[in-house]
């Protein structure tokens, strides 16, 4: 392997990992508040279709991204209303949201199949893009990739060092205790759900506006589910979400690269690596009861009823 090839692999790794990273950051914040939203795939698809339609009709990618996020937020609010106000089961509601989003996006987008747009172009940063190996990987990408770096930093800071982040975690660990000391449990959870929706919408928009600038039914092809697995893989740590997303990105392109180079590795084996890794992490986490209790937010998936 020469330097060029490594540069290209690293570049593609970040690009492939970016939608996963964005969704996973949103879901991580959501789960930290104790809410498990399995509707990522549906929210992504809604973001993808709305973003695409808006960008195609208005010619503005920025507007496309913004409304993609809005679409994700609206979808997440449906989930929020059902699980928070009506205290419906979060797993069932999340699954329903995915099925609903998949169908609705196909319905809305049926007239927009087969129409091309000009996608987001990479933005080179003078001096930095030309650095060997890491130049293109970190500084030869498009704006959304740079934004994902910023988002990672912001979420890292928010969860690990900020006071609101502490409130978020308190609500996710023990909403009743949080409520007793006067923390706004419902509001915190709503905000977390909305943030998750916005991120899923943004990642969906990234797919249809930058990654492959087109709309096709079900184009997210399971990336929302991978992001959900990623949060578990990362054992709810922000830093590991970044590593995991990029690692998943690397694993999913490596088998393509190896085939092109003619390495005699089974492409099927390489394709299952990311999923295998998730299963292994799950096994390790759950092998130790204390540890598994410590990493996941205590009240994850449990509805909260305010008492008194």
């Amino acid at each position: 392997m020469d330097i060029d090839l490594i540069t290209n692999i690293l570049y593609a790794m970040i690009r492939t990992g970016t939608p996963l990273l964005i969704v996973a950051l949103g879901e991580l914040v959501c789960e930290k508040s104790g809410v498990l939203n399995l509707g990522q795939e549906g929210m992504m698809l809604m973001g993808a279709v709305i973003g695409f339609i808006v960008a195609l009709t208005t010619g503005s990618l920025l507007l496309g991204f913004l409304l993609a996020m809005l679409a994700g937020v609206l979808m997440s609010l449906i989930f929020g209303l059902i699980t928070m106000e009506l205290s419906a089961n979060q797993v069932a509601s999340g699954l329903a949201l995915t099925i609903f989003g998949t169908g609705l996006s196909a319905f809305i987008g049926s007239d927009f199949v087969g129409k091309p747009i000009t996608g987001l172009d990479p933005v080179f940063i003078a001096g930095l893009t030309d650095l060997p190996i890491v130049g293109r990987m970190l500084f030869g990408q498009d704006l959304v990739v740079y934004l994902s770096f910023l988002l990672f930093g912001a979420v890292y800071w928010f969860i690990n060092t900020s006071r609101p982040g502490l409130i978020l975690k308190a609500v996710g660990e023990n909403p009743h205790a949080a409520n007793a000391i006067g923390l706004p449990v419902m509001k915190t959870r709503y905000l977390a759900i909305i943030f998750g929706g916005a991120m899923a919408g943004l990642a969906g928009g990234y797919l249809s506006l930058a990654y492959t600038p087109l709309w096709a039914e079900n184009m997210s092809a399971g990336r929302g589910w991978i992001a959900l697995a990623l949060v578990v893989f990362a054992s709810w740590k922000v830093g590991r979400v970044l590593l995991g997303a990029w690692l998943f990105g690397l694993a999913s392109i490596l088998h393509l690269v190896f085939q092109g180079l003619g390495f005699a590795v089974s492409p099927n084996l390489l394709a299952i690596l990311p999923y295998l890794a998730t299963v292994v992490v799950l096994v390790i986490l759950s092998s130790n009861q204390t540890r598994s209790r410590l990493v996941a937010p205590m009240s994850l998936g449990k509805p909260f009823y305010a008492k008194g």
Partner: protein
Amino acid sequence: MKRRQFNKLVAGLTAGVCMTALSLSVQAADPLKVGFVYVGPIGDHGWSYQHDQGRLSVEAEFGDKVKTTYVENVAEGADAQRVIYNLAKTGHELIFTTSFGFMNPTLKVAKQFPNVVFEHATGYKMAKNVGTYISTTFEGRYVAGYVASQVTKSNKIGYIASFPIPEVIRDINAVQLSLNKYNPDAELKIIWVNSWFDPGKEADAANAMMDQGVDVILQHTDSPAAMQAAERRGAYAVGQASDMSSFGPKAHLLSVVDEWGPHYINTVNAVMNDTWKPKANVEGMKEGAIVIPSFNESIPGDVIAHAEELIAGIKDGSVYPFAGPIKNKAGQLMVPEGARMTYAELEKMNWYVEGIESDIPQ
């Protein structure tokens, strides 16, 4: 139409004369109800999309005389049987089932509705009222392989493949046979993505190929993502199933398009005129089922001219991609000089021809 009305009259007479007169006057104005069952969404811009384009051309051709219904996203298996049964039950007289996995469900329902005509795409089982149809995509691939062999500068041609089934292996072979004949120095790089449709992955595969020097990309997957990726990086690509020129005006060499319209129109005609018989329809360029709508302007004139000659030759039978001698990867003679592989043999093709360096994934 007259013949059909007459038959209805005869059928009706056996049931009761008075009722017949009544039903005849009603049925004469009744459109022929035609049902379509798709395995994917019509929004895939690929396989199911093209079948639906065929359905639309039936509507355009016959207007009020037909009424078409389609059901998309039908899972292969028991679900399909229910969908096909419902179509037959609700008065559809002609039903097209458009995926391999619909084969047994179609036959089961056909037994219960002997007066309904069924046509099943890509299968091999027939019955009194069940015919099959398939198009010979390899003809288009052979032409695409020729054009690719002429425009490549790096002599590296990429092929994004879906699943290692005979249909896909056969088409890869058609391309390699073209390369063997027109540019033996060109190397075919094959990447399996294990999916018919995943735009992100198809784009990744295209990019991985271009990183390795590939400058022409062919695909046996359904999204135009590879075309877009090629456009971005100044490479060439060949569209699959539907016309993908709008996704890469500069990159788009040509598209190998499935046109189901002519077959659907012929079949509807045959059913209306009561001339329909169960047949295994294998249709290609000659019948207008495989079409190359346009060539990129940047392709040299003599290359386009020869490609047109190839198409003409395929149409009149003088050119056949799988004519001997054909050796397999190991150099063994599989098809002797002068022999031609039959369609039945092509349907079972599970070996690579000489010149392909990689192995078929197990």
